[in-house]
């Protein structure tokens, strides 16, 4: 009996040993060769770099179909994460508005959203910084009929409310709500904050070891920082752009620019228009005798 069961066990023992050897060989010694892989199998940092490259290529060539094809097969979370990181990095670095608009266009097409995109989203009309509910009266033709033999519709002006363009879904600004019925109240025009901004404060900052810069703080009527304001620093032969709120550690209304001595700067807000500050120059700070000379930065506070 013992001999019989021993004989029966032999192939099973052999099978187990053979299987173990076979798996060890195929999984460890000679696994399937790693060739001809595709982007989705890349390590996370390489995958994100792939997305970044595809996005930057879109910036250069504007070929949406090609960009989509390059990102096809990648998880949306990878695409979204990499796109957000790229847009935020480029925004913080003050990259050109054209580049950021293209990136934003691609991000939108890929259903990726980040607050840094807000200022680059193309809307039919620039949304006001402070949303003001301004219902517009639009006459519409309503047939009014009197029971006469010849009933002809006559145009009657009936005020109807036309809501302003809907802000982007990610706008931090509150969406004005308008009741569709009822007598419209006369609009109370409030100029947008942008048009009311002026220089409230301008001071030289003299801190040793700090890079020379021009910082701008935008505040509203209550003194709170206002994020999302486009600031332009221009000088002969150049321009730089920043958006407030992208360095939240300095406050919502903060933006800054690198600056150099010997250059005359002008500061504008919104679209390049009438500058609020002109002839701004980096100047040496007053120093005591024996102290090292120090170039001062500027802090400019804008408010209504």
């Amino acid at each position, binding site marked *: 009996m013992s*001999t019989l069961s*021993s*004989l029966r066990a*032999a*192939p*099973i*023992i*052999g*099978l*187990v*040993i*053979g*299987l*173990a*050897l*076979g*798996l*060890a*060989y*195929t*999984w460890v010694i000679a*696994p*399937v060769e*790693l*060739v*001809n*892989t*595709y*982007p989705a*199998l*890349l*390590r*996370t940092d*390489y995958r994100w*770099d*792939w997305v*970044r*490259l*595809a996005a*930057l*290529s879109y*910036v*250069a*060539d504007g070929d949406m179909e090609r960009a989509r094809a*390059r990102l096809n097969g990648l998880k949306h979370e990878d695409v979204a994460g990499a796109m957000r990181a790229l847009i935020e990095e480029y925004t913080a670095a003050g990259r050109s508005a054209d*580049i950021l608009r293209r990136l934003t266009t691609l991000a939108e097409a890929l259903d990726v959203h980040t607050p840094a995109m807000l200022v680059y989203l193309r809307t039919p009309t620039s949304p006001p910084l402070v949303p003001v509910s301004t219902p517009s009266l639009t006459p519409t033709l309503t047939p009014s009929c009197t029971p006469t033999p010849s009933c002809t519709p006559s145009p009657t002006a009936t005020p109807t409310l036309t809501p302003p363009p809907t802000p982007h879904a990610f706008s931090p600004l509150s969406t004005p709500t308008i009741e569709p019925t009822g007598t419209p109240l006369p609009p109370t025009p409030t100029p947008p904050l942008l048009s009311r901004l002026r220089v409230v404060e301008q001071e030289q900052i003299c801190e040793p070891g700090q890079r020379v810069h021009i910082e701008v703080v935008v505040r509203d009527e209550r003194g709170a920082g206002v994020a999302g304001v486009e600031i332009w620093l221009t000088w002969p032969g150049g321009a730089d752009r920043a958006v407030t709120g992208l360095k939240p550690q300095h406050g919502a209304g903060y933006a800054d620019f690198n600056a150099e001595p010997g250059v005359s700067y002008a500061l504008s807000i919104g679209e390049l228009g009438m500058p609020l500050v002109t002839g701004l120059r980096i100047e040496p700070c007053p120093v005591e005798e024996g102290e090292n000379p120090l170039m001062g930065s500027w802090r400019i506070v804008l408010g209504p």
Partner: protein
Amino acid sequence: MNKRTKQWLLRAAVGAVVGLVLGFIIGWWLWPVQYTNTAPVVLRQDYRDDYIVMIATAYEVEEDLEQARERLKLLDPREPATLVVELAERLIEAGGDADDIARLARLAWALGATTSTLIPYLEGPP
């Protein structure tokens, strides 16, 4: 060695052979090693080519030559610039996109590896 031992060994050997074959089938076909976290160097050739084109295109936007070089080194650590030249020449032969070739030519030039074939593309598509 008696007859029973021989019989035992024979059966065990047959079992081992069957086990080995099963192991090969499972390990190479049914349940092979799953690779994730791979590097660009193992990308399929068309993806590798596109990767190089994207590096050249991104270089136009970023203007960061070192970054471009580091990316190319992921494909060939020893001669990263050669990849760009080779691809550009392949695209020229194959009648590829002239803008892509021009971008590759400019990156190759920036990396100091341009060839006479690429010179006409340096100012843009010829």
